[in-house]
């Protein structure tokens, strides 16, 4: 008969059917013990355990949720030791090891952002441009090559095993090739297209690609950062648009140059131009681009623009509006 299992779970009745004189610990008991042991090691976190008991050994496997951020390897090792020791102690079975699978990580509830490490001002190196993996063109070309070779292989197999006639496309291809030679207009055009395809592939192979992203300086090791050019564009556009007197802003961001075209409704032209330049430069430098691009500013007065009068008499409607804001 079985007794003496200090498990929180009740013993199943099936144990009575086993032979006398042996102690059988049910898998369910082992599982519950392992779950309780995990809860001891990880207070407040639910854990799921599975256990099998082949003979005198128990194989335990746990799925746990760990707190984040903490070193996973240490936490998992502690849990494993604790669960193995407690299960062995409470069941008397041989527990060689416990498999611990971290199924999720729980960040702290209070969503406070992490503390920033001190900034290293001396950047070790200028980061390079990101190079595209050229996945799409490679996938296109290899897929079409695979389709072509596959069609040929399939047709060859059908001809030589099923003794059917060659496919019409293969017959016509051989016929066309044996009817046309170098110098034919069709061959010349096909050759030209092939050469263009070759040039395109060479250009793809040697250029970096990812033109719409600009590399950003980070002082961190093993962190490569890039910012989308559209993000730089909207930052510059919003910064310039906040300058008083500027109505419409058009910004064009290229790799080496940023062009800003702003329209001025009121105010002094030179002052507005200086303010726009300062705002655009500040916005660009806040992007920490790898290479500071040149900023070219054009401030064009609107048709309704009038040169400002003496500053002490705010009588014109435009100037009155400016004071209102």
């Amino acid at each position, binding site marked *: 008969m079985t007794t003496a299992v200090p498990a929180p779970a009740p013993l199943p009745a099936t144990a009575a059917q086993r032979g006398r004189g042996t102690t059988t610990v049910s898998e369910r008991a082992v599982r519950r013990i392992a779950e309780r042991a995990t809860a001891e090691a990880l207070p407040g976190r639910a854990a799921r355990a599975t256990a099998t008991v082949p003979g005198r050994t128990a194989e335990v496997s746990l799925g746990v949720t760990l707190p*984040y*951020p903490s070193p*996973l*390897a240490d936490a*998992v090792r502690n849990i*494993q030791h604790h669960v193995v020791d407690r299960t062995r102690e409470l069941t008397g079975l041989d527990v060689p090891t416990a498999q611990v699978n*971290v199924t*999720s*990580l729980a*960040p702290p509830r209070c969503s406070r*952002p*992490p*503390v*920033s490490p001190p900034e290293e001002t001396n950047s070790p190196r200028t980061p390079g441009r990101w190079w595209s*993996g*050229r996945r*799409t063109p*490679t996938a296109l070309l*290899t*897929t079409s090559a*695979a389709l072509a*070779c*596959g069609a040929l*292989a399939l047709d*060859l197999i059908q001809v*030589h095993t099923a003794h059917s006639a060659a496919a019409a496309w293969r017959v016509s291809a051989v016929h066309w*090739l*044996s009817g046309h*030679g*170098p*110098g034919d207009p069709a*061959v*010349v055009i096909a*050759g*030209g297209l*092939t*050469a263009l395809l*070759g040039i395109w*592939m060479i*250009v*793809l*192979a*040697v250029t970096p690609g990812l033109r719409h*992203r600009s590399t*950003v300086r*980070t*002082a*961190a090791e093993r*962190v*490569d*950062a*890039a*910012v989308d050019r*559209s993000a730089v564009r*909207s930052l510059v556009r*919003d910064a310039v648009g906040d300058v008083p*007197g500027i109505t*419409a802003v058009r910004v064009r961001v290229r790799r080496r140059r940023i062009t800003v075209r702003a329209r001025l409704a009121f105010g002094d032209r030179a002052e507005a131009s200086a303010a726009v330049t300062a705002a655009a430069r500040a916005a660009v430098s*806040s992007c920490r681009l790898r290479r500071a691009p040149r900023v070219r500013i054009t401030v064009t007065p609107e048709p309704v623009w009038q040169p400002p009068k003496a500053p002490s008499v705010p009588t014109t409607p435009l100037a009155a509006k*400016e004071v209102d804001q």
Partner: protein
Amino acid sequence: MIRTARTAVNRTALGAGGLALLLTGSWLAATDRTVARQLPTWWPITRTNAVLLEPGRLAQLRSEGWWTPTVMTASIGLTTLFAYWALGQLRPGSGRRLALPSPGCTVRPRALAEAVTARATAVPGVARTHARVLPRRGRRLEMELRVWLAPDTSPDAVLPALRAVTAEAEGAAAPYTTHTRLRLSAAATPRRGPHVR
């Protein structure tokens, strides 16, 4: 900076294949009669009335015993190679579990990515985040972190905090060296109309 072996392989193959196509294509295009007269003497020219594929030669090859098995093997082999290569261009999933130093212990890469996403989204000025953790060979992890910035937020304002997020992830995945690729984008916002003052 070329960082993965796949990029190098893809680019080498594209360059080599492109060079071969360029040479063949330009040679074929230069057989045009008006062009052919102006070519230098060393240019390899064909005899007149040649065709791309001579039927007699093809029939002779087909009568050889080795021809059919060779063509069949080559086409099947090339099909397999190209199909394998094309499948390799698909984004790798992060389904494989990461083994931790203790025997039998693993962590789901997705769990790490979800934790990093939650931490990065908590940074002020970040509108949305997407993270992927990809196991690489030899105790390396590659983390792809894409961050959508809230309007009027500059990279300068969020980069220190995001560095802290990646440093946390590096610390959590300790025996693995984590390499992060961080991409900053602007959150999609309705386009602002012209300023009226």
